[in-house]
Structure formats: structure tokens, C-alpha cells
């Protein structure tokens, strides 16, 4: 956004507040190309450490899944009534993570917030990869993975359809659509940058980028079409992002169980999704900034804005969370109230209180400028926020199973087995492995949009100085 404050404000600010360094407006376009392309060549050694760690985690996850596939879901120590365990909780977590990519790339694009430009590419990649991770959990938790395609409405000789009443079918459709669209969006927005890669790369890479850049020449006509198409996809993606987590919420809201059958779940889930997604963006921002030496582009003012956005969303989430408790507490549904009391006092009480603390109190750290300017603190805080959001999903699933309608099935203790934990950790490995690979192969900072941003800012400055 063009700075609209008048000069006197700027003068005062310049005198009293030490201004954090933003993107250098005089940076040469060739320098932008060089810096971003360099990130694809020689990252800091930390890159390989992270990559190796995620590969190891992923390998362990694959081992656990193969073991579970061969032996049966019994190795996960799931039981009746704890039929879902960590799998579905982590599934919701990953679906949630996917939302902020769209927030940054599509919603803020339409709102012309130009500070998103250096960071939206990796946020969009995060969307795509966390959706792919979430999709894995849908498969992992199935008893008969090999027949997952029964959920898809495909033509077959027996004329059997999936059950369109079931929220799981809505899920499959919504996630499939969102994943496809976000891959298209990610790829489409990258085409001009891929052309830059093509023009500088050599050998087999040149062929690779040549193929992917679809003959981009950067002509006026191409740019005009590109703009229109990009905006169209962005507009298409926004309702999808909202609908996908609303539909995940209906898995619970449509069901009859106490603690799930809550009308406010869809907006609550969407808020939680944006929340954890924004927190994840802060984490990845700090990692990428260090690993790929992006200090020039991923600047502190951008982090500052992201943190303020996260704080606002955290407060929305807190509000919806409290509203949920209040409506259950004052409602006449004795079962739901019992389950709520059980969450706060029963077996899962430590996790429930931790979730409320991490989700609603810790974000207040983001309200202080001195905190927002400290990378170490922000790294820790963003990880804590995401831990809180993971606990939130865990606290939706397990207490309802442990203390549902039927007293005979109330469980005194249930803990997931190492296989479940292994698969959950493996999913983090899978996500960061894909993400790190992406960052190495594709330009993580959008070169053409940073150029635009620099151009507009210097124009604005010129206009101000005249």
C-alpha cells in the first residue's frame, strides 16, 4: 500500500522511532534477480541440516505407516470409542495450516497490500504442501486404504455412488478442489519468475524451466492476460478457502456427539485455520530469511505486519472460542456441558488449559513492538502458537470420545501409541521435506512482484518529494 501518512508524521517518526530497515527502494532489478537466483544455488549449511532431519522424520513416518498397513490399525492403540485419535486431529491441523497461504496471496492481493509480495510465494507453497499432508492423513486413518476411491463419485458398472449425505464426501470433494486450485495458483503466479530462471539456467535445468515457463516472453499482451487470469484465480480461491475448512468443521458440527454438535464450528474452524497458518508463516519466514540469506527481502517491517495480522486473528479465534464455551455452558444440552466440564477437569485437563493459554494468552506477546522485532522470541512464540492450535484440534477429538453420551464407554485413560506419534512426526517431516525441496528448486521470493513493489514505492517517494 502506498504510504498515505503526511510528511509531518513521517518526520516525527523518523526522529523518535528507530526505523527498521525495509526493502531498499533503490535496489537494482538485476540485483533482485541475482539475489533470488542465488538462493537456489548455495543456501546456508542449515538448509542441509533441516533437510536431513525432515528426511529422517519422514522415513520414520513411512516405516510406521507400512507397519500399520501390514498389521492393522490395532498397532495405533485406537479402540472403541477412541476411533480416530491423533490422525484426525492432525488432519484438521494441516488443513488449517493451508489457509494463510490463500489469505496472503489471494485476499491481500485483492486488497492491494503490497507488503505481502516478498513472502506470499512461500506461503502459497505452504498451502499446497500442507494440503497434501492433510490428504495423507485421510488415507492413513482408513481401515482399508486400498479402497479409498470408493469415496469418489466415479462411473462404475454397479451404479454405486458415495453417500452424498456424508460430510466425509464433502470433505473429499472440497479438499480435492482446493488442492487443485492452489497448485494452479501457485504455479501460475510463478510463470514470469520461471522464465527468469530459464534465461539464466544452463544444462538440464534450462530444459526444465523452459518447459515450465510455457514460452513466457514478457510481452505486453502476455502481461495483460496474466494479470486478468491471476486475479480471476485469486477470486476463485478465496471462497474455496473459506468453504474447505467450514466443511471440515461440518464433520463435527453435523454429527450428533456432545462437544461436536456446535453451530459456531465452521467460523471457529476458519479462524483457527488462519491463526495457525499465520503463526506457521512467521516460523517459516524466520527460517527462510536465515537459510536463504533473504534479509534484504524478508525485512523486519514485513514480519511486523504479519505478527500484527496474527495477533488480530488470534483475538478473533479467542472470541469464537469463548463464545463456544459460553453457548455450551448456558445452553440446555446437559451432555455437551458435561463434556465441556470433563475437558476442563478430566484426564485431558492439562492439555485443555495449555491450549487455552497458548492460544489466547501467548499471542499477547505479539502486541509489543519490542517482542515483534526479536527474531528468536518470534520463532519461539510462533511455534508455541501452533502447538496451541494442534492441542485445540486434539481437544476437539479425544475428550468427546472419552466422555461421550454413553457412560459405559467413558475411558479413564487413553494414550496414542508410538505408531501414531511416529506417523504424526513423519507428517511434519514430509511437509518440511517438500517445502525445502520447493525452496531449492523454485524462486521462493517473487522476483517480478518485488520489482513492482520497489517501483511503486520509489514512484510514491518521488511524488512525495516533488
Amino acid at each position: 500500500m502506498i504510504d498515505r501518512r503526511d510528511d509531518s508524521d513521517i518526520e516525527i517518526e523518523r526522529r523518535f522511532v528507530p526505523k527498521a530497515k525495509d526493502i531498499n527502494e533503490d535496489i537494482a532489478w538485476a540485483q533482485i534477480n541475482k539475489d533470488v537466483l542465488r538462493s537456489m544455488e548455495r543456501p546456508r549449511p542449515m538448509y542441509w541440516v533441516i533437510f536431513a532431519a525432515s528426511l529422517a522424520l519422514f522415513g520414520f513416518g513411512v516405516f510406521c505407516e507400512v507397519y500399520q498397513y501390514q498389521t492393522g490399525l490395532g498397532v495405533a492403540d485406537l479402540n472403541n470409542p477412541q476411533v480416530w485419535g491423533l490422525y484426525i486431529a492432525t488432519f484438521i491441523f494441516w488443513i488449517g495450516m493451508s489457509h494463510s497461504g490463500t489469505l496472503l496471496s489471494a485476499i491481500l492481493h485483492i486488497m492491494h497490500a503490497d507488503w505481502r509480495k516478498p513472502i506470499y510465494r512461500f506461503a502459497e507453497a505452504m498451502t499446497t504442501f500442507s494440503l497434501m499432508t492433510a490428504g495423507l492423513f485421510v488415507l492413513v486413518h482408513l481401515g482399508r486404504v486400498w479402497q479409498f476411491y470408493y469415496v469418489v463419485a466415479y462411473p462404475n458398472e454397479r451404479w454405486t455412488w458415495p453417500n452424498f449425505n456424508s460430510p466425509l464426501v464433502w470433505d473429499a470433494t472440497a479438499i480435492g478442489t482446493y488442492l487443485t486450485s492452489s497448485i494452479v495458483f501457485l504455479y501460475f503466479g510463478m510463470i514470469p519468475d520461471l522464465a527468469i530462471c530459464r534465461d539464466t539456467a544452463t544444462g538440464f535445468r534450462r530444459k526444465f524451466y523452459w518447459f515450465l515457463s510455457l514460452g513466457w516472453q514478457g510481452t505486453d499482451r502476455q502481461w495483460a492476460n496474466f494479470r486478468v487470469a491471476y486475479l480471476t484465480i485469486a477470486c476463485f480461491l478465496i471462497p474455496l478457502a473459506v468453504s474447505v475448512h467450514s466443511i471440515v468443521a461440518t464433520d463435527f458440527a453435523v454429527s450428533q456427539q456432545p462437544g461436536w454438535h456446535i453451530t459456531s464450528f465452521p467460523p471457529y474452524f476458519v479462524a483457527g485455520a488462519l491463526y495457525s497458518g499465520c503463526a506457521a508463516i512467521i516460523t517459516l519466514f524466520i527460517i527462510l530469511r536465515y537459510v536463504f540469506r533473504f534479509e534484504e527481502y524478508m525485512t523486519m517491517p514485513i514480519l511486523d505486519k504479519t505478527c500484527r495480522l496474527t495477533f488480530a486473528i488470534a483475538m478473533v479465534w479467542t472470541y469464537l472460542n469463548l463464545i463456544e464455551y459460553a453457548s455450551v455452558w448456558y445452553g440446555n444440552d446437559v451432555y455437551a456441558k458435561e463434556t465441556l466440564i470433563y475437558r476442563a477437569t478430566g484426564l485431558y485437563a492439562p492439555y485443555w488449559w495449555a491450549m487455552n493459554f497458548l492460544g489466547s494468552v501467548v499471542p499477547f506477546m505479539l502486541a509489543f513492538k519490542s517482542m515483534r522485532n526479536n527474531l528468536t522470541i518470534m520463532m519461539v512464540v510462533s511455534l508455541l502458537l501452533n502447538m496451541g492450535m494442534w492441542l485445540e484440534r486434539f481437544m476437539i477429538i479425544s475428550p468427546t470420545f472419552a466422555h461421550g453420551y454413553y457412560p459405559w464407554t467413558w475411558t479413564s485413560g487413553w494414550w496414542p501409541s508410538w505408531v501414531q506419534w511416529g506417523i504424526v512426526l513423519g507428517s511434519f517431516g514430509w511437509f518440511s521435506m517438500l517445502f525445502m525441496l520447493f525452496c531449492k528448486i523454485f524462486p521462493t521470493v517473487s522476483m517480478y512482484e518485488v520489482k513492482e513493489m520497489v517501483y511503486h514505492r520509489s514512484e510514491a517517494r518521488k511524488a512525495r518529494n516533488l
Partner: protein
Amino acid sequence: MSLSNLIKNWSSLRVKRPYQDQYKNADYKWGMVIDLDSCTGCNACTTACYAENNLPVVGKESFSKGQAMHWLRIERYWGEGTELAQFPDHGAQFLPMMCQQCESAPCEVVCPVGATHHTPDGLNSQVYNRCIGSRYCSANCPYKVRYFNWWQYPERAWPNPLEKQLNPDVTVRSKGVMEKCTFCVQRLTAAKNQARTDGRRVADGEVTTACAQACPTSAITFGNMADSQSQVAKIWARQQVELASDKQDKKDEGLRGYRIFEELRTYPSVLYLERVRNSDA
């Protein structure tokens, strides 16, 4: 079916269950009555169910993890903190619990592949071949009477030559599918086929479930509720419990019949008769 037909007849194509006199003209509607006053908690019904329906005995370790496969379970409740909780009774109360064959079953709507659905004779059926094991049905079941095959039980529960004692009329389920009480559907099908061959309706008492057959105190009564002269239909009528109603309008306060979680509007097909206790004892 054309699109215009679909739009025009949308309301009639929606599943609305149950409704008044749904089974008035039907041949069969299977139902059950369990008299808790007669139940001694002897577990004969559970054993019979294990034998009839090829239920695997999961072993101590799995059982303690809550992975037992008892389609019919005897629940024990103790009268703790009441004056009934004295020796020798301890206020012990037994409740045989199996799939309630709900007329508006929470499990049926949520199954993504339609593996569990309602049959015309009022059963809540489970199609093992279609089940993909998402376990959503179990998550949404208020009674938690659905059991999942966590392991490949055929190998674990019936090592050679034990597989020779399996009931040939009942599928042996593989790992990864959901299962539950079927009201011994293999017996019902056989009886219906026999009756159809003879050109008649299945007579009352001609077919019964394994649990009802094994019960030494005849606490379980099973039969065809569409036949108003059957034992089951008579008890339901005597207890003034309507199948398609979620609030019973009982004229007599002393009637013992009730359905579990009636207020959740699942419309179960199993009627329980309350236990009568002498509270002065």
C-alpha cells in the same frame, strides 16, 4: 432419472425416517424387547453371539486396550452411593447392549460410501465389502456399539484347526472393516426364504436371534413388529411405546418400557423394560 424429475420430486426423494405407520403394510419389521428384571447377567447371550456370528476372541492384551469385539455386551452398573449398594447386591444392575437398529440411525447418514444403510425390514445393515474403514459411523454412534477390526483377526483368533468351528453362514471379516450386531440377519434371511417358498409370512417364534435363544430366563424377546399378533408387537403395545415417536405418551405411570437415548431421536428398535427394585431392602 432426468434432472427435471429430480427437481420436481425432490422432497419425495429425501429419506424421511421414521414416520407414523411406516411398517403398517410391510411384511417385516424386526424388533426386540429386553426385560432387565429377568436379566441375571449370566453372559449366555454374549457367548451365543460369539459362536453364532464368528466373533473373534481378541485376547487379554487387546481387550485391556478396549479392542474387544463383543457385538452384544453385558454392562454392569453399581448402585454406588445409594442405599441399594449393600452386600450382597451392591446395587448390581445388568444391561445387555447391542446395536439398537435405530430407525433414524446416526451412523447411516455419515458413512461416506453408504456401507451402512437401512433395509426394508427395518434393519441397520453393514456391507463389509463396501466399508473402507473411516470409522465415522462409530464416532457418531451414541451407544458405541460398532466394533472395528483393528487386527487381521481370522489368523489371530482361530489358528488351525479352530477355523473349522466357524459358522459357515456368516462372513469372517477381514481387518479394516466395521461390524456390529445384525440381529442375526443370516437366520432372518433363511427364515424369510423358507417362508417365501411356502408362500406365507414368517410366523412368530419361527426365527429368533442367538442371544434370545440362549437366554435362560427369556429376558430377550425377538420378533416381527409388523405382525401385530407377535409377542414383540404385543409387548411394545402394552408398554405404550411408539416406534416412530421420540416422546412417549404413556397413560400408565407404572409401565416399565423405555428406549435408551430416546431424546436423541434415533428411534431404536430395542425396547428395554426397567428393573423393578424394592428400595426398602
